[in-house]
C-alpha cells in the first residue's frame, strides 16, 4: 500500500512555495475525510445530570468550544456525531440514551463525562448504571465530579487525535460491558 506523504515529505514543497504558483498535496481519501470529521464534530444536546451544567459552560463564551470546531450542539440525534454522556444514567434512562445513540448516523463517537457516567461514581445503588459503557461504546472517559470545562476540552482534543489517526472506536463497536454476550 502506498502511504500518503508525511508532513516532512511535503516540507520542501511548502517552504519553496511562492505566491502565484500552483501547489498539489497528495493524501488518501479517508485521511482527508478524517481531517474533516476531526474538525467539525457536532455534539448532541443531551444532558443527564449536574455534569451537563459544566458541559453547557464548556460551550459558552468563557471556554468557547467553538475554538475546536465542536460548538454546533444539535437538538436531534440525526444531525449529531458525538454523544457526551454528561452525568449519572439511571436504568430507566438507559434505553432512551441507547435509542438516541442508535439514531445518530455513522460515524459517531462517545465521551463519558464525569465519575458517574464512567463508573457510577458515588451512586453505588440499584438504580444507576455502573458505567455507561454497558450501554454505548465509549471513546474517551473524563474523570472528575464534575470535570472542569478544561477537562472536557482535553477529552475533546484527545478524541480529535483519535479520529485523525484513525484510532477511534469502530463506529459499529458494541458496548464494552454487555454481560449477556449479545
Amino acid at each position, binding site marked *: 500500500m502506498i502511504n500518503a506523504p508525511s508532513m516532512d515529505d511535503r516540507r520542501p514543497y511548502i517552504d519553496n512555495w511562492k505566491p502565484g504558483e500552483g501547489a498539489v498535496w497528495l493524501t488518501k481519501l479517508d485521511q482527508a475525510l478524517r481531517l474533516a470529521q476531526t474538525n467539525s464534530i457536532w455534539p448532541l444536546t443531551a444532558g443527564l445530570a449536574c455534569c451537563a451544567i459544566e458541559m453547557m459552560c464548556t460551550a459558552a463564551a468563557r471556554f468557547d468550544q467553538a475554538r475546536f470546531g465542536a460548538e454546533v450542539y444539535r437538538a436531534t440525534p440525526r444531525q449529531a456525531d458525538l454523544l457526551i454522556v454528561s452525568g449519572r444514567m439511571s436504568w430507566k434512562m438507559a434505553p432512551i440514551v441507547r435509542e438516541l445513540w442508535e439514531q445518530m448516523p455513522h460515524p459517531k463517537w462517545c465521551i463519558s463525562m464525569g465519575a458517574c457516567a464512567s463508573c457510577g461514581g458515588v451512586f453505588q445503588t440499584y*438504580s444507576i448504571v455502573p458505567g455507561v459503557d454497558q450501554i454505548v461504546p465509549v471513546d474517551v472517559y473524563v474523570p472528575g465530579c464534575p470535570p472542569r470545562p478544561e477537562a472536557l476540552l482535553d477529552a475533546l482534543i484527545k478524541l480529535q487525535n483519535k479520529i485523525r489517526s484513525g484510532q477511534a472506536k469502530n463506529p459499529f463497536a458494541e458496548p464494552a460491558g454487555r454481560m449477556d454476550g449479545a
Partner: protein
Amino acid sequence: MSTLQDLKIHLQSALGAQAQRIWIEAEALIVFVESSGIRHALTKLRDDPDTSFDIMSFMTAVDYHPRQPRFEVVYELYSTRRKHRVRIKCLLAAPKNELELPEIDTVSDIYLAANWHERECYDLMGIHFRKHPDLRRILLPARWDGHPLRKEYPFDGKREWNLGTTVIDGALMEGDLGL
C-alpha cells in the same frame, strides 16, 4: 381545638376503639389505627368539622425487618383550616408466602394525593393497595423485579444489573422504552 393535647382528647373520642394507641412525641400527634379500618378513620378525620384534615401531606411506608408486624404505613395529614397535623400509622404483617405482598385498602379516593404516593409505596416497598385505580410502578422501569427499599434487597442491586441489560435489549427489540 387549640393545643395538641385538646386534639388528642378529641381524636380519642372521635375514633374510639379504632385508635389503638395515641400519643404525643416531638410535638407530633401519632395515632395507631387498625389497618382494616383505615378508610373509615381517614374519612372521619377529613369530614369531622373539628378536625377537618383536608390535605394529605404525604404517605409512605417503613420496613422494620425483622420485627413483626414488619411494615408500617404512615399517613401525614394537615388541616389548612385549623392548622394542625396528625400522623396516622398502620401496622402490616408480612404474608407467610414471600411472593405475596402485604395488603391495605387504598385511600386514593379519600385523598387524591394518595394516588401517586401509593404507587410509589408499591414500587419501592412492595405494598399492595386494594382497589387502587392504577397500581403500576411509578419510578422504576415497568419490568423491574423486586422492591428496592425493602431490607432484604441487595444494597447496590447487583442482582438487577443483568436484568437491566435485558430490560434494554427487550425495550429496543419491542420498540417500547419500558416506561
